[in-house]
C-alpha cells in the first residue's frame, strides 16, 4: 500500500502566501515613495514652466530670481547653494579625512573609545541646533575676525562652515570604514619595503581606499547641498548672485523653506516654483547619490 504523501500544496499554505504578498506590498511601498516624489515634482514643475511668465531658458540662464517682477532665473539660488556646499566641503573633507586616518591608523583603543562617541553625539544633534550655532557663534566669530563692516549679519561663509561641521562626523565614520577595509597585507607589504607609517598611509592605503573615499565625499556633498535649516537661519533671505561668501545669499533649500513657511495659495507661481526648485535639488542630489553608489561598488569588486 502506498503511504499518502504529505501534501505541501499551495492550498494548505494560503495564509503563508497572503503574508508573503503583504510583505511584498510593504516593500513596494518604498518604490511608491520614489515614484511619488518624481511624479509630484515633475507635475508641479510642468505647471510652473507652463505659466506664461516663466520659460525654461530664462529659468536656467537668468541671473535674477525676483518673482515680484516675474524674473525666474535660478542661478543666484544655485550659486548660493554651491557656495555654502563648497565651503562646507573645504572644511569637512580634510578634517573628516584626517580624523578618519587618525581613527583607523593611529588611535589606540582608549582614544577610539572617546572619539567614536563624540562623533556619534555630533551626528545625532538635530540640524536646527547647528543653525542656531551658526547664528549665535559662527557669525559673531567671523564678524570679529574679519571686521563687522566686511561680514554681513547673514552670510554664506558662516552657514557653509557650520554645514562642514555637520557633515564631519558622517565623513569621518564612512571614511574610516573605507580605510579600515583595506586589506592588512597591503600595509604589511609597504612596511616590508621600508615605508614609514605615513608613507604607507598616503601612498598605499589611501589610494587603495580611494573609491570608498570618493563615494563618501560625494555623499557628503549631496548632504551639504540638501541641508536646509542651517542656511535658512544663517545664510539670509533674498536671492542674490554674489561670489562673496561674507554676503547674504539665499540657497535653493532656504528659498523653499521661506516661501512654504509663509502663506502661499495653491496653484500660484510661488507655490509651483518651490516644486521646480525641489526638482532641481532632487536631480542634483539623486545623481550624486547614484554616482557615489556606483563608485563604491567598484571598490568592493577590487578586493573581494
Amino acid at each position: 500500500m502506498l503511504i499518502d504523501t504529505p501534501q505541501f500544496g499551495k492550498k494548505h499554505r494560503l495564509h503563508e502566501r497572503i503574508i508573503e504578498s503583504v510583505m511584498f506590498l510593504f516593500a513596494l511601498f518604498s518604490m511608491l515613495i520614489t515614484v511619488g516624489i518624481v511624479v509630484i515634482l515633475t507635475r508641479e514643475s510642468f505647471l510652473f514652466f507652463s505659466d506664461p511668465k516663466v520659460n525654461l531658458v530664462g529659468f536656467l540662464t537668468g541671473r535674477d530670481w525676483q518673482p515680484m517682477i516675474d524674473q525666474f532665473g535660478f542661478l543666484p539660488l544655485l550659486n548660493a547653494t554651491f557656495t555654502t556646499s563648497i565651503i562646507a566641503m573645504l572644511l569637512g573633507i580634510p578634517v573628516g579625512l584626517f580624523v578618519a586616518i587618525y581613527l583607523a591608523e593611529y588611535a589606540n583603543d582608549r582614544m577610539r573609545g572617546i572619539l567614536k562617541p563624540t562623533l556619534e553625539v555630533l551626528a545625532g544633534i538635530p540640524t536646527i541646533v547647528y543653525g542656531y550655532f551658526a547664528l549665535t557663534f559662527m557669525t559673531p566669530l567671523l564678524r570679529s575676525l574679519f571686521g563687522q563692516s566686511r561680514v554681513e549679519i547673514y552670510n554664506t561663509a558662516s552657514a557653509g562652515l557650520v554645514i562642514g561641521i555637520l557633515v564631519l562626523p558622517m565623513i569621518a565614520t564612512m571614511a574610516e570604514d573605507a580605510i579600515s577595509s583595506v586589506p592588512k597585507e597591503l600595509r604589511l607589504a609597504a612596511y616590508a619595503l621600508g615605508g614609514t607609517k605615513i608613507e604607507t598611509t598616503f601612498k598605499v592605503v589611501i589610494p587603495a581606499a580611494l573609491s570608498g573615499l570618493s563615494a563618501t565625499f560625494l555623499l557628503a556633498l549631496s548632504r551639504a547641498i540638501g541641508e536646509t535649516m542651517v542656511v535658512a537661519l544663517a545664510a539670509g533671505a533674498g536671492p542674490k548672485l554674489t561670489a562673496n561668501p561674507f554676503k547674504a545669499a539665499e540657497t535653493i533649500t532656504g528659498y523653499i523653506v521661506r516661501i512654504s513657511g509663509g502663506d502661499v495659495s495653491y496653484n500660484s507661481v510661488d507655490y509651483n516654483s518651490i516644486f521646480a526648485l525641489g526638482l532641481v535639488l532632487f536631480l542634483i542630489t539623486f545623481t550624486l547619490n547614484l554616482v557615489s553608489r556606483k563608485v563604491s561598488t567598484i571598490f568592493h569588486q577590487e578586493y573581494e
Partner: protein
Amino acid sequence: MQSSLAFGSEENVLSLMEKRRKVSLIWQVVFLLATSLAILFLVLLLFSIIDSTFGYAALAYEVEPSSLVEGRQHLSEFSRLQLEETARSRLSSGILRRVEYEKPIADRSDKDLTALLEQYVVKPSVLRTWGLWESLTNQDEIEMYLQEQDQAVLTFKNWLTFDFLFADQSANPLYAGIRTALLGSLWIILITFLFAFPIGVGSAIYLQEYAKPNRLSRLLQLNIFNLSAVPSIIYGLLGLAVFVRAMEGLTSGSVFSTTVDTTANGRTILSGGLTLGLLVLPIIIINTQEALKAVPDSLRMSSYCIGATKWQTTWGQVLPVSIDRILTGTILALSRALGETAPLVVIGASTFISVDPSGIFSKFTTLPIQIYQWSARPQGAYRNVAGAAIIALMILLMILNSSAIIIRDRLSKKKRMEA
C-alpha cells in the same frame, strides 16, 4: 654598499631618513589637531547653547516693586500679607473678579500670587540679555549699561525653568514656554512610529527573508539606499502635495465628521506624522535588515528541519532574537524624526498656536520648529529662550536614545537567560 650608491653618500641617506621621520611626525600632529578640532566643535556647540540659557538680563518694570511696598526691590521679598494686599489693591477690577472667581486670592500660593502680580501689575520686559560667559567676565560693561538705563533692573536669569516647560507661547519672551511644542512633537512621533514601524519592518522582512536575488529585489534595495539620502526637504514637498493638499479631507478629518475644526486645512498632526514616517521609513528598513542579517542561518535551518514554514520560522524564531536590534534601530530613526524641522515647515506647521493639540486632526507646532521661530527673531531675549528650548530638545533625544540602550540590554539579557 649598493644602497649608498642608490641614494648617494651615507650623510645623504641619514638626512633623507631624518626628513622622512620629520614628515611622519608633522602629519601625525596634523591628524591629532584635526581630531582635537572635531572635539572642539562639539564643545563649542554645547558651550554656545549653555551660554545663552543662563546669564544676566536687564529688565524694565512698568511699575517698580519698590513703589508698591516701600523698600522692597523684588516681588520675592514681599511678605504673604503684602502680596495679598497688593493683589487686591493693584489688580484692575475685571482681572481681580476673574482671578477671585477661578480661585480666591486667600487660597492661592505665594508663587501663584507673585506670578499674577508680575503679569498684571509689574509687567517686566527684557531690555537686554547677556550670555553666561559675558555675565561672568564682562561685569564692567554690564554695570555701564545699567548706569545708562536708569530704570533697568539686573537679574541673573535661568531661562530653562519648569515654568518654561509647562507654559504655552507668549509674545513676551519672559513668559514664553514650550508646552504646545513638546506635545506636538510627541504626537508627531507617535504617528510616525505607528505608520513607519509596521511598513518598515514588513519591507525588511520581505527583502531579507523572502526576496529572491533577482532584478526586482536589487532595484528595491538600491531604491531604499537612494531614498535614505534624499534631502529631508524633498519629503516635505511630497507631504505638502500628497497629505496636505491631495488628501486634505482625510488628513484634516473632515471626511469623518463635520464637527471637526477644519481651519487646519490638512496641515495637521496626521499630515506631519505621515510625512516624517516617509522620511524615516528607509532608515527603519535598513536598520531592520541589519538586525535580520545578524541572525545566524543555522537558526532558520533548524526551524525548517522540524517542519516549520517560512512564516513560522520568521515569526517564531527570527523576529524574537532580532527584536532588540530592530527596536533600537527604530528608536534611532524616531530620534531623527524628533529633530527634523525642514519637512514640517514645508508642509506648513503653525508658527504661533497656544492651544494644546487635542488629537491627530489638530494644528501643531513642534519643538524644532519653535526653536527655528525663536532663533529667527531679531529680539535678543528670544535667542535665550531658543537656547533653553534646544536643551529641552536634546534632553528629550537623550531620554529616547538611552531608552534604546536600556531596551537592548534588557532584551538581550532575557535572551541569554532563555538560551
